[in-house]
């Protein structure tokens, strides 16, 4: 059990009471409950607020072009990472689960690339046949 959570930041292992209870309830005792200090959640919560405020400011100050898009993506990825890693406890799960869940969505990027090409082509044909719009 220990090696499963060796990188646990402040993680409490099952104590005897928990283990007995888990055994009585028919749960494999190898299952580890995710218990972390409250402070960790409060810190992450505060960061999510700050990052949300930052991404709102991007729009409030009317930033444009690549600066706007890159800032939006950076704040988005930071927020998503914090939620998945800490709130959803992915940081303390074994890699088998983390890879099984996190790798497949990354492959969606291939789909994105395909649809970018497709959309560009559709726009090209529309402009060619219907003109440049209003």
């Amino acid at each position, binding site marked *: 059990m220990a090696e499963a*959570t060796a990188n646990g930041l402040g993680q409490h292992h099952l104590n005897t009471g928990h283990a007995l209870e888990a055994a009585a309830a028919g749960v494999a005792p190898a299952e580890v*409950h*995710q218990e972390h200090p409250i402070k960790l959640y409060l810190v992450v919560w505060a960061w999510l607020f700050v990052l949300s405020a930052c*991404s709102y400011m991007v729009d409030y100050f009317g930033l444009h072009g690549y600066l706007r898009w890159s800032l939006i993506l950076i704040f988005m990825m930071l927020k998503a990472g914090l939620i998945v890693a800490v*709130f*959803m406890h992915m940081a303390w799960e074994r890699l088998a*689960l983390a890879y099984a869940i996190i790798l497949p*969505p990354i492959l969606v990027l291939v789909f994105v690339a395909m649809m970018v090409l497709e959309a560009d082509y559709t*726009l090209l044909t529309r402009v060619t046949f219907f003109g440049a*719009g209003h």
Partner: protein
Amino acid sequence: MAETTLTHIGQTEPRPAGWQGIAADWSSDQRAFKNVSWGKAMMWIFLLSDTFIFGCFLLSYMTARMSTRVPWPNPSEVFALHIGGSNVPLILIAIMTFVLISSSGTMAMAVNFGYRRDRRKTAILMLLTALLGATFVGMQAFEWTKLITEGVRPWGNPWGAAQFGSTFFMITGFHGTHVTIGVIFLIIVARKVWRGDYDTGRPGFFTSRKGHYESVEIMGLYWHFVDLVWVFIFAFFYLW
């Protein structure tokens, strides 16, 4: 760890045949996620499939927006509210974002207190989460009403590309449905916690199985996912 990996190679019991055999072979002794219960693993796999659903929605939105000749309506102006004599851009969406993030925070605390066997705090925090979720859905209903009265329809709107309406109603509608379902389940699980079902081992109304405090964490996974999806919708639909 050993008990989860040993599969008794030299077993003498004959394996069942027919349909029972299929079920037994697929369900027994196989375990990829060593220290995660089946409930949690299945919630993660469900969330993965849901990721693809929302991924496809956002992809189709991207494709529509990239391929139209007509200018896309400026979300900053479309979602502005008239407050105190001036238009504040995107303010309602920003408030909705903060409401949802707050609900994620209270949910994380509820999970924590659940494992500490603090029934009262767990239930209160879950109900607070549900309340914030309901607030979010209410604000979304307000937003929809505002846009519909301004003439936004799935087939057109006064400001530009017609696909704006269809993608908007589709994406936010699906997300709002997820939040609504989450609120309902939060209330159900909060009631179970409050009543002490997970301490007394009372069988569930649907599965007749004993619940555990892990149900709170699994509920939390779903709720955080709803927040996670909003992070992407906020970035790609409202801010882009």
